[in-house]
């Protein structure tokens, strides 16, 4: 009777609960097997203020650039290059533009380790993001979700924990106004020279602001 109810009743929190239980009962990796808890960003001044010293691994990071094309992708490239070098794959879920292979190669990314996933709608994109996050062979998942609520971010957060990957979500600046369960939230702003990073939230760390100089436009 109870089992039947569980199967039939559409309960909004059920998936969350299942994921949470899965996480609780999953036999965790032993300490020597466990990878690093953070992936160095390649920017010393940023690593210095991030808890763990880099992009959180097994967690969601939200990047909220005020516009596209201000260095928001270049900020990730040194870390992504490391992952490719370590044999792990990087999934790009429904990117807004085509990543330029020559630019990525110049930044040290291994093209064979990139997976580009096209999704016909936002929901398919989220599903694909979750699947990719759960795969241990994929070290980082980049996604550009159109709209997200708390519950969705929490799902993705649990998927990232399960797969031990970096979930890197690009979100519109307006998202900064809502709270989010993501482990790390950064607002990005273009300066005449460099990129201003405001750490809005860092689990286990403090809010902070700093300026970095991603090597995007070398000819600038």
């Amino acid at each position, binding site marked *: 009777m109870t089992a039947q109810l569980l199967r039939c009743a559409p309960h909004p929190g059920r998936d969350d609960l299942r994921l949470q239980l899965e996480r609780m009962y999953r036999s965790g990796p032993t300490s020597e097997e466990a990878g690093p808890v953070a992936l160095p960003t390649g920017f010393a001044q940023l690593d210095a203020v991030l808890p763990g010293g880099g992009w959180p691994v097994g967690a969601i990071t939200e990047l909220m650039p005020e516009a596209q*094309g201000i*260095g928001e992708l270049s900020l990730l490239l040194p870390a992504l290059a490391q992952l490719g070098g370590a044999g*792990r794959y990087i999934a790009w879920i429904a990117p807004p533009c085509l*990543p*330029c292979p020559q630019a990525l190669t110049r930044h040290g990314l291994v093209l064979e380790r990139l*997976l580009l996933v*096209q999704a016909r709608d936002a929901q398919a994109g989220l599903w694909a993001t979750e699947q990719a996050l759960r795969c241990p062979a994929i070290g980082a998942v980049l996604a550009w979700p159109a709209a997200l609520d708390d519950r969705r971010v929490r799902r993705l957060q649990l998927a990232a924990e399960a797969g031990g990957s970096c979930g890197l979500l690009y979100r519109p600046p307006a998202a900064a106004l809502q709270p989010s369960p993501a482990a790390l939230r950064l607002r990005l702003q273009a300066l005449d020279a460099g990129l201003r990073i405001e750490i809005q939230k860092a689990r286990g760390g403090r809010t902070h602001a700093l300026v970095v100089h991603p090597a*995007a436009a070398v*000819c600038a």
Partner: protein
Amino acid sequence: MLWLCILLPRFAPEASAGGRPQAERAALEVLALWALQWSSQVSIEPAGSAGRGSALWIEIGASSQLFGGHAALRERIAADLASLGYTHRLGAAPTPGGASLLARAGLATVATTRTQLRQLLAPLPLTLLALPEEPLAALQDAGLQCIGELLVLGAAAIAQRFGPGASLYLQRLCGEVREPLRMVRAPQRFTSRCEFADPVTDTTALLFPLQRLLAGLQGFLRSRDRAVQRYTLCLEHHRRAATRLEIGLARPGRDAAQLLALARERLAASTLGAAVHGLGLEAHELLQPLVLQNDLFSRAAQHSEQLQQVIDRLAARLGESAVQTLRGAADHRPERAWRMSAASVTASAAAPVGPAVPVRPCWLLPQPLHIDRPQELFAGPERIESGWWDGADVARDYYLARGADGAQLWVFHDLRNGAWCVHGLWA
């Protein structure tokens, strides 16, 4: 020889008990293919008029060492049958008849020798014997009650008193005469199907029968040491052409659970145009399996296996062309300097990046976008003149410019018509 008999009392429930012997036989044949993964000697007996249910025999004496002994193999087979939803009884003995008799009696003890079999059979009631009613009644009239009392009589006496049929049956039961069994042979190509007593309108209801068909495919592939990279689901409708769904894998595989997971995604993404009356499964192209399919994996092999599974799952749900890899191409025109190809774990050779080019922005726009002449140009020009040979020739000067919102734009001045366009973003 050690025969494992699987008795299936209520076999093929979807074939609506009793009325459809053909559907039941088809289902039994699928199960026979499944059984071929355990042994090359498999035989079946469809349910007869005697109401004894269907039976399937697997010779496990020769192959049990491969699977960790006959007890372990028997457990694996039982677990598989349970997961396929088959109610069953198992019996194991040196003769096929002995195995089915032990299964009918519900004896879990394995008779490994003929002596042991006789000992196990002795106390069992005569009614368990697979004999026609007439000789059975004659035996009971003679005052015999258990099999042991009959066996001590000797073949000649039994033949004389109860007919040669009964005698031959008992000799085969005890292994004194070899029982001629027709062995199932794996076909050259795999096709199997099942029919539904009630039409199915919901794709999720197809998963259970499909699981059974895929178990057959897995057994077939293992027995022939082959794998598939593509298979077809055929949804049969009434008076309408069947719906065919092609399902592809990133690399050859034969694990039924994996094949089912892909079909599940594919079915979830499709809607049924009409009720489904039957389900077919076809796999024509049989490939060499990749090594390490079922063995201990190194970490790298494990990663590639996991990656393959996620690629397959994504492609099954989002479409074959939805998961791609990127590489460079030898062309100076940015819009032609890249190629996309279907993602695959096996494609690991380093792809050429194309000619060395000056630094490029991370993002390319799918189409150059017309803009007004930028106020200020920060770097450039880089002249790209190319393509006179294929009719898509360009002559452009590329610069770095800055958008009103602070974005760094890769713009070009078209030297042919004087237009200005954005072609990329220094993201």
